[in-house]
């Protein structure tokens, strides 16, 4: 697979949110606002890239038996760095993401990429994989948050977009709205993919 393909596969073909259905817990929980979605997505991207980089560069010294605890220690370290730095310099975003920042540790996209990709592949490929998957995850969160914020709150990036006459459809910022929106987006993605296959 070419370097470019390593980077772009996470955006569509193996998108963690829409194709692999990984990391569903934060996906459903933080997508009430686009800003929170971007904050979570970029935090996860940083952790993915750094964890992939470290795991890949140490792949020859990490013993097979204890690889999972080592992956978790490495991932938890970068998540704690994100938590501290965000708390210090992006305090409002940190407050709105709350418990979901520490929970990036158990986001299965990250452990999944460390185990399935970075522990077997060269460093540069692993960085591209982490970056692509992270941006794909961010893209997924932003797409879902866009639908939920506009329908459920009448705003996008906190700015009113629907005009005075619109009564926000509250359901969309509540948990059921997350499942419903995700369902429709998945259906849309599958339909596009099927059509592409039929024509291609």
């Amino acid at each position, binding site marked *: 697979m070419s370097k470019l393909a390593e980077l772009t596969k996470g955006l569509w073909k193996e998108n963690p949110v829409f194709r692999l259905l990984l990391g569903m817990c934060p996906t459903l929980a933080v997508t*009430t606002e686009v800003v929170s979605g971007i904050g979570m997505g970029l935090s996860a991207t940083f952790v993915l890239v750094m964890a992939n980089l470290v795991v890949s560069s*140490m792949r020859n*010294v*990490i*013993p097979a*038996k*204890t690889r999972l*605890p*080592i992956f978790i*220690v*490495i991932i*938890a*370290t970068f998540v*704690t*760095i994100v938590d*501290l*730095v965000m*708390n*210090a*310099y992006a*305090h409002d975003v940190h407050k709105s993401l709350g418990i979901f920042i520490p929970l990036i540790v158990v986001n299965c996209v990250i452990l999944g990429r460390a185990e399935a990709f970075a522990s077997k592949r060269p460093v540069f490929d692993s960085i591209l994989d982490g970056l692509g998957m992270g941006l794909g995850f961010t893209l997924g969160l932003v797409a879902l948050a866009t639908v939920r914020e506009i329908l*459920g709150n009448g705003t996008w990036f906190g700015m009113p977009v629907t005009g005075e006459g619109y009564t*926000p459809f*509250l359901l969309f*910022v*509540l948990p059921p709205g997350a499942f419903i929106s995700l369902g429709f987006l998945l259906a849309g993605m599958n339909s596009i993919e099927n059509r592409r296959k039929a024509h291609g």
Partner: protein
Amino acid sequence: MSDKKDSNIAAVVVVVIIATVCAAGLAFIKDLTADAIQAALDNETLSAVAKVVPKNCEADLAKQFVFPEGEGGLTFYPAYDKATGDLCAFAVKTQDDKGYGGRLQLLAGFSHLDNPEGLVLQRVYVLTHSETPGLGSKATVGQDEDPDTWGDDPVKVFGVNFRMKQVKDMSFTAKKAAEAGPNDVSAITASTVTSRAVTNAAKKAAELVKGNLEALKQKGAR
């Protein structure tokens, strides 16, 4: 057998080395960000306190105290007149555990500290809550805007219920908007539980300030 034992030991040694390096790195980052985190937290508290005390007053976080001391006490942030430096208001961090989503924390500002009868509740500011978005969360509508823009309809802005009220006149009872008298709190539509939690938290602070005004003034004095 010996090989297996060796490889086990090696595996454990690698885990310990990696964990130690990670811990050292984190200790360094924590040290690096500690001041900025404290400054961000202080800023957050100062800007929330500034919202609930009169505009001519300014809080001094170094003078904050807990009253009554020990568990169950509330945190007081004394604010001082910008011109004279005299104590002019208290912001009280109070809470109620019976919100619809559990604990709800708010700041209540009190001014006119000359005597308990003249005490005025400036306004309240919800700090943390887990209320339902769009229903109970309406308790926070407008709270980051200038209260002068709120108008005087408590149905539109819940904070109006607690703005510039004589503490001695308030009933601290949340009732449905249609049934609420001038001294009652008009509950948010379909969110009586949330309204009651905010009211009870404010009541707790008001009673504490009213009943212990002299002691509090002594503690808050510069």
